[in-house]
């Protein structure tokens, strides 16, 4: 088993521009069932052998899809997410960056009334190595195994997955939750999914400055954690008040410091790597 993405995932692509088409092809190459694209006005045509529908409703009705990945530009992205939520898909992954935060507040309020899992926005998506991916993660970094991996970062995820894979730590599922202040699947919930997944034997958690999700995750694991875990926090050297690339990566009002997050994980008995390269060794120690 794995979480969120499995062999039975049937994915539609919302936004089939250059990026959407490229990644649709990549996902298919990895064996993921990409069943339709959505482009208003292009219904009935096909792009790269992918049947296109005018609406998510039509696409789901025709293909029995249960997941969606969104590449729609920022100004229309919240509408695309709401359209996906309206069809009660199991998983929606929003890749789009720069979505206004008030749009996401509204989306979050709607999301709370649905049973859909929204991953992102501003995220690389989800991969269950060997089973499928709904995202833009480069498959070469990943290998199948039993480490559950949750990360707020994109490229850093690939870097660390690469380190893990090289050292023989394959992954059950990797969830790139996204770097925005308001995201669909916050870190504590993502970690909970993997903590409760029987096929996941250990956890790797990569956080960064901003917000208190890492502290909440540490508190959750302190109470309910059942598996060896290792954490890493990016941004130890980031000065307060500066936004570090991600909209959510900022220390404000003394909140969201890397030091506080490191402290929280250590208090929960979870070792925190000083550098990414230390993670495999710490994991090995935890598992032994």
């Amino acid at each position, binding site marked *: 088993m794995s979480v969120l993405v499995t062999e039975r995932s049937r994915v539609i692509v919302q936004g089939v521009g250059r990026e959407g088409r490229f990644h649709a092809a990549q996902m298919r190459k990895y064996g993921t069932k990409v069943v339709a694209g959505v482009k208003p006005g292009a219904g009935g045509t096909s792009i790269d052998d992918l049947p296109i529908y005018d609406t998510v409703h039509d696409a789901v009705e025709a293909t029995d899809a249960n997941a969606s990945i969104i590449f729609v530009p*920022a*100004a229309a992205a919240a509408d695309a997410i709401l359209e996906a939520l309206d069809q009660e898909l199991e998983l929606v992954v929003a890749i789009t960056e*720069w*979505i*206004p*935060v*008030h*749009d*996401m*507040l*509204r989306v*979050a*309020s*709607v999301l709370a009334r649905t049973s859909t899992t929204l991953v992102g926005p501003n995220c690389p998506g989800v991969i269950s190595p060997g089973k499928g991916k709904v995202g*833009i993660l*480069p498959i*070469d*970094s990943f290998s199948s195994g039993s480490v559950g991996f949750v*990360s*707020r*970062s*994109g*490229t*850093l*995820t*690939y*870097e660390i997955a*690469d380190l893990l894979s090289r050292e023989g730590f394959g992954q059950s599922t990797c969830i790139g939750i996204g*770097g925005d*202040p*308001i995201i669909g699947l*916050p870190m504590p919930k993502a970690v909970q999914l993997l903590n409760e997944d029987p096929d996941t034997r250990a956890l790797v958690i*990569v956080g*960064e*400055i901003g*917000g*208190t*999700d890492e502290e*909440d995750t540490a508190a959750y694991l302190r109470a309910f954690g059942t598996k060896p875990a290792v954490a*890493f926090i*990016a*941004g*130890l*050297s*980031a*000065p307060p008040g*500066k*936004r*570090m*690339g*991600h*909209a*959510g*990566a900022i220390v404000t*009002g*003394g909140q969201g410091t890397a030091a506080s997050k490191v402290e929280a994980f250590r208090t929960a008995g979870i070792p925190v790597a*000083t*550098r*990414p*390269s230390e993670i495999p060794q710490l994991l090995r120690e935890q598992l032994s």
Partner: protein
Amino acid sequence: MKLHEFQAKQLLHDAGIPIPKGGVAYSPEEAAAVATSLGGTVVVKAQVHVGGRGKAGGIKAARNAHEAREHAASLLGRELKGLRVEKVLVEQAANIARELYLGVTLDRARRRPVVMLSTVGGIDIEEVAVSSPEKIARGWPDPLLGLQPFEARGLAFGAGVPVEQREAVVDVLRRLYGIFTAKDCTLAEINPLFVVADGTVLAGDAKIDVDDNALYRQPVLAAMKEVSAIDLNEEKAREIGFSYVRLDGNVGIIGNGAGLVMATLDAVKLAGGDAANFLDVGGGAKEEVVKAALEIVLSDDRVRSVLINIFGGITRGDEVAKGILDVLAEMKPAVPLVVRLSGTRATEGRALLEGKPLTSRATMDEAAAEAVRLAKAAPAIAARRSA
């Protein structure tokens, strides 16, 4: 994007929240003119984006136009916490009976707006939040409904707002929430809200931050943007489409992905150095993007070495290498470059860089250590230039 106090107050005024009478002055003469037109005691307030402006001497009371001119003269052109004062707000002084705090911001963990109200106004609310959190009443309205009257009333009762001001404060709080949502704010704060001797209320100071991602639909606010000299590189980078943040060190940093760049800054720190900047070229960066990034980093006189850390996923190592070679050919940079390429087509990229005037390293840790060593060894650019 932060608004100046006078801009924020204009938004409050437009939304029907009472503000003191006043005007912006760019010179001591203008300040005196505003003071004359207002009459009586005024307050001269530096308009700069810094916290603790009052403690730093940026706010001064003046009993007449003459004093207003003098205070404006002493403030204008001066640096306040590193930022130059280019304008002052001259406002009628209020007869203050007490001060309240009102604020709306994001609660990330709850994924809701959070509305805050406290009768301990006028001071650093973040300190109050830590030392006596019970003094701040908080509410989390559903953004689909907005701040309902009953919620605002509940906060007023919770904060212990005096009965005489309750309705006025509830009204101001709901209007402030209205600004927060209508203007795509990430922070909307009135601190302090004056309760004047006659019992009415008046926004003493206001802080509004606007979501940069929403500026495309807030043209009026977007037009308020000011680019200070120090931010020129940040602005240039934003136009190209990547994130750049100026930092205090001397090792220039280029990487792909915010998390990876943050980790690279940390690696530099762990190696005993300090980054001069944060620069994320984003995903799938091509040759010309890498070139533009290098140009920005190299235009910073403080930079003594540059560390390029690319983990190729969608980004291809050979494209990055070509961008670096272009810059080497055109600019002949005076500072040493350290390059770490990994991931997709990194082998091809490394092969392209072979024998060129730069240092290649296999891991982030090694690359960071080398960049720090080179920065420490290098003479200042200014020195070299003058040589």
